[in-house]
């Protein structure tokens, strides 16, 4: 089955991962800008990172017939440094017209601090000015519920925000409805120990349905599985869910959300199919 992994950090993965993802049916991925595992020393470090996201990864992905898209921002962890964040946000417009950029992300909260909230709002100001899609990281573990509530408060407080152009990511049992009931898209992250398992993600789908929901691996430099989306496909099949419903979650939904971006390009596989 063709699928899209809407959230994966390929900068931290080896080329063999692209190969195996393609073998499993992956036709497109999107890679949000995130924390590198260490705090960068200057805004120039982000310039190099953004260059990697818009130039290097699309070429590496294309070798395996995968379309690579990216999202730009300063992540919530480094957003604690407000002056660095403002320098990075000022640099983002230089990269926004690159052909694989889908929007602003993954912005969000980490420890739910005042500085993080300030920078979250300043990213939203930029997204409103440039009319970009927004991808949102919600905090981990004990901080998730509070952080997701705060993020929804900020989104609803900003009258420029169009909920159908926002995806709230890393939702779990206690936060999925905060996203969906307010009209936002949402993503479930299949990640060992700290987030969802494929089985729990399918439980969530059974409880909330298949509208405006997608699943991703968030594969990165931590112990994670770049083939987590195919695991979800297998779990849905094991439970007897029809292929049409599976395809909606792993392919049609991310496609529908991403197609709102002016710079979306159809996956190679779809273009070749119509020839």
């Amino acid at each position, binding site marked *: 089955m063709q699928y899209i992994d809407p959230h994966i950090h390929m900068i931290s993965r080896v080329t063999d991962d692209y190969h195996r993802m393609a073998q499993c049916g992956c036709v497109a991925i999107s890679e949000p800008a995130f924390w590198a595992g260490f705090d960068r020393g200057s805004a120039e470090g982000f310039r190099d990172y953004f260059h990697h996201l818009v130039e290097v990864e699309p070429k590496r992905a294309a070798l395996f017939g995968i379309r690579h898209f990216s999202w730009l921002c300063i992540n919530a962890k480094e957003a604690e440094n407000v002056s660095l964040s403002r320098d990075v946000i000022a640099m983002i417009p230089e990269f926004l017209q690159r052909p694989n950029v889908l929007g602003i992300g993954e912005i969000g909260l980490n420890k739910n601090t005042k500085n993080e909230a300030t920078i979250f*709002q300043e990213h939203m*100001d930029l997204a409103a000015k440039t009319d970009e899609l927004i991808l949102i990281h919600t905090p981990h573990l004990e901080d998730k519920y*509070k952080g997701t509530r705060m993020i929804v408060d900020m989104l609803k407080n900003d009258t420029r925000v169009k909920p159908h152009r926002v995806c709230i990511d890393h939702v779990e049992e*206690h936060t999925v409805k905060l996203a969906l009931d307010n009209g936002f898209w949402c993503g479930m992250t299949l990640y060992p120990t700290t987030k969802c398992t494929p089985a729990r993600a399918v439980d969530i*789908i059974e409880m909330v349905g*298949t509208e405006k929901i997608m699943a991703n691996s968030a594969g990165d430099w931590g112990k994670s599985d770049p083939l987590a989306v195919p695991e979800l496909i297998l779990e849905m099949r094991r439970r007897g869910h029809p292929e049409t419903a599976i395809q909606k979650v792993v392919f049609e939904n991310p496609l529908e959300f991403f197609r709102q971006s002016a710079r979306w390009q159809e996956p190679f596989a779809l273009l070749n199919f119509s020839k």
Partner: protein
Amino acid sequence: MDPRVKAVAAPKVLEQSFLEARSKLLDIAAILDRITRGDAAELVHQDVKISRIIEALKILQGSSAHKAEQIQKLFSLPYDANWEIPTPRY
């Protein structure tokens, strides 16, 4: 809700998941045993993490159909609706 993704029949879920549930319960039991066996076990009684685990086990004994959500909330920090929301710059 999507009628195509109905929950699997309860007896089938039990049949398919029984060994997995047994295994995970044993893992929790073994973790608690390991804590008890370790030096300075008395110190953990003051640690909120142990009381959270005990509370979570009580949730498992209840009749709610949303035990996973309840456990998620148990392990969550409280939200204050009166926090100071930043002002958008139009």
